């Protein structure tokens, strides 16, 4: 059991695979012994909450902007952060997180413009990129390899 604190940072939920991957990754990392918190916008959090109404896959669900303020004000921090992004705003939030937190950063880049968006990332992180919108399997498989590497 690692007990390392992991933050899954969801952005705009416009691209469908974000919700399923967040649920999957939260559950997987929790089972591996990580202390997982999922942060999201109001809409992203509602999607997650309805999908997982008993909190089986996501134990801790928090507000994205409030979490960022807590980190800035040094009331909280994480060891690892997975930042979801499919647009420039998502990348901007992840860049902010990279700057204010000590967490090791993983950028989950998806959607139709994933490749181009990934190229705009300037901060230090591992990029997991899949040009997918509806089918989460390719991204899930890539994340499985990343989580295997993390626990080694």
């Amino acid at each position, binding site marked *: 059991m690692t007990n390392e604190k992991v933050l899954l940072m969801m952005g705009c939920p416009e691209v469908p695979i974000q919700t399923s991957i967040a649920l999957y990754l939260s559950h997987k990392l929790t089972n591996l012994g990580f202390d997982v918190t999922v942060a999201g916008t109001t809409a992203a959090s509602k999607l997650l909450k309805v999908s997982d109404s008993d909190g089986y896959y996501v134990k801790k669900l928090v507000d994205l902007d409030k979490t960022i303020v807590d980190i*800035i004000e040094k009331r909280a921090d994480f060891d690892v952060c997975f930042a979801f992004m499919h647009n420039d705003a998502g990348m901007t939030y992840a860049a902010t997180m990279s700057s204010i937190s000590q967490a090791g950063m993983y950028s989950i880049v998806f959607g139709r413009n994933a490749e181009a968006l990934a190229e705009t990332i300037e901060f230090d992180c591992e990029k997991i990129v899949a040009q997918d919108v509806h089918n989460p399997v390719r991204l899930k498989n890539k994340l499985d390899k990343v989580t295997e590497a993390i626990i080694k």
Partner: protein
Amino acid sequence: MSCIEQMKYKIHLERTSFKDAREYIEKNSDEVYYVSPGYKIFKDYYIIGVPLIAVGAKNNTLIFTYTKPCYGSFVLSIENEDSIKEINRLRESEKEKVTASLKKDKTPESSKKIAASYQDMWKE
């Protein structure tokens, strides 16, 4: 909801990329200061952004970026008593940086410098 949404603001650019928002501020401000992500302005707005984040001043107007996850980045400006305070705070921070730099017998750095930072901008 941050205090910005309850203030009287002007939108200069909307639903754009952060890079374009930064360039707009650089081109349309009389003074430009660079701050770290998380720099706090007004009552409770912590700026979200990609370093270096430009904050502009034009007369008594503060020009800054505002990023929303679903809508992209905006360039907003606010002119009121608080914006004057914020501009003065940025100017003071810049002066302190230059003074500290002179004390260390180093060449003052250019204005393209972090005016005030919550913590070190670049992680090791």
